[in-house]
């Protein structure tokens, strides 16, 4: 992975944003709250060392590169890139 690859992913994501209506903020808020309520529990243990993506109160994907994860999920779910809540789960601790 290079800086160039990162930049290409960013360019793709910005293009994808133009294809969908902006996300509903209260839906994003609900998913952020869902994440916080489960933070520190065993729910995220399997995802340590990766980024998890939350949509509608469910983990819908995880991966080592957050930009690539977001791009892949947009293609899979056909919704705006900013609709996903993506958080890194550290390998140890919180």
């Amino acid at each position, binding site marked *: 992975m290079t800086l160039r690859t990162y930049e290409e992913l960013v360019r793709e994501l910005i293009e994808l944003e133009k294809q969908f209506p902006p*996300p509903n*903020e209260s839906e994003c808020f609900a998913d952020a709250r869902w994440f*916080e309520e489960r933070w520190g529990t065993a729910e995220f243990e399997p995802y340590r060392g990766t980024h998890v993506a939350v949509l509608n109160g469910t983990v819908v994907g995880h991966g080592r590169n*957050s930009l690539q994860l977001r791009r892949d999920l947009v293609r899979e779910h056909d919704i705006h890139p900013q609709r996903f*809540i993506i958080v*890194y789960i550290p390998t140890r*601790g919180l």
Partner: protein
Amino acid sequence: MPTIHLTAGAAGGAELLATAGAYVHLPEFRLYVWVYLGGIGTMERAVFDTGASTCILPSRFWLPLHRRGAITWLTGDPAHFAGSGQAADIAVQGDRYPFRLGRVALELLGVGGSSKMEKLSSQDVLVICTYDLPSEPPAEQLPLVIGLADVVHGRTLQLEASSDGSRWAATLTES
């Protein structure tokens, strides 16, 4: 007055050997906050670090902002020390990274309070943008860090702990 609730969580700590085989536990707590960066509607979770002088944005956060022209750059690419002209670097989580300084619009969000999202007004803040790239094998990802410079100006950070210290709660209020 606008207030946001931060999330406070026990983040482990250290055990030190004491006398007679006992040990002393030094607890560690971490505060988290949600943010919008650069006026862009992606909700990001960040560590609210009262020991950090300013905000630190790893590359996965600042590259999308840069692409949109949402960063006002203050230094070259990367930053160099004045005088010596040597490339500057910063230590984050035990490794050193080149960086670039800029200013970014930051809006703090709270999700730990009522059933509605809490927001403080957007402020332009100083940010350190690190040149950290994914490696093979993958290394631990740097967190998005919200430091104090600019962020707490005109605001009050209040921290409360339960009587046994096991539970923390924190709010940030705008005057």
